[in-house]
């Protein structure tokens, strides 16, 4: 069980570095289902584990020249405050309903991201072809 948790931990870190996410999408299930924490503990523990992971990732990205420090700090500060509001809203809003709306919104965003990526890929191929001819 520990070995599985370690493997999932590595995978969460790879996703984190590759996509700029925290990795909670893998860490929370690993903590809950593999290590047997309850849902609240799993989410809390995942948050703590994410801090050094994201910090190391941001530090590596900074050395690659990709990091916008001002943007990151500003977004992070607003997100930290707003997360408190989000947690409070869980107890007030019909979360089940919003859950589906959010999932649909994410699918739409996925489609937008994919089409924009494909456009970039196509224009790269075109310019390569143009450069070659």
């Amino acid at each position, binding site marked *: 069980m520990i070995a599985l*948790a*370690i493997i*999932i*931990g*590595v995978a969460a*870190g*790879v996703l*984190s*570095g*590759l*996509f*700029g*996410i*925290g*990795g909670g*999408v893998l*860490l929370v299930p*690993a*903590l809950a289902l593999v*290590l047997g924490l309850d849902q609240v503990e799993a989410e*809390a*523990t995942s*948050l*703590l584990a*994410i*801090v050094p*992971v*994201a910090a*190391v*990732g*941001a530090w*590596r990205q900074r050395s690659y020249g*990709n*990091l*916008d420090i*001002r*943007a*990151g700090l*500003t*977004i*992070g500060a*607003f*997100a*930290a405050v*707003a997360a408190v*509001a989000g*947690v409070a*809203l*869980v107890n007030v*809003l019909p979360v089940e309903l919003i*859950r589906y709306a*959010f*999932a649909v919104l994410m699918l739409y*965003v996925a489609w937008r*991201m*994919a089409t*924009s*990526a*494909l456009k970039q*890929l196509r224009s790269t191929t075109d310019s390569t072809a143009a450069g070659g001819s």
Partner: protein
Amino acid sequence: MLSPRISQLAIIGIATGIFSGLFGVGGGIVLVPLLVLWVGFDERRAAATSLLAIVIAASAGAAAQILYGNVDYLAALTVGIPAVGGVLIGTWLQHRIPVAVVQLLFSGLLVVVAVLVAFE
């Protein structure tokens, strides 16, 4: 290099925080697409900036959870230490894969998370 307006960053931060608080999804899932589609960051810059924002937001969240006594430190180390190793691999990979391919993979990840959120 384009410099995003502070109001844009504030709105992105607030949206990220509320959604992660509501659904327990990490901020990056919300934050990276907003930076790419709305601000016009490329996928690498969005991912890097997202990681720094997550450090701030997750630190605040973790501090609150520590006060509530919800954190299991041994479990945090068990997954956290391997994940730090993983993030070195991930950033190394990201630097070597074409930016559009990373973005395409990210949209796949979004679909997976959408399904997980819907069927939680």
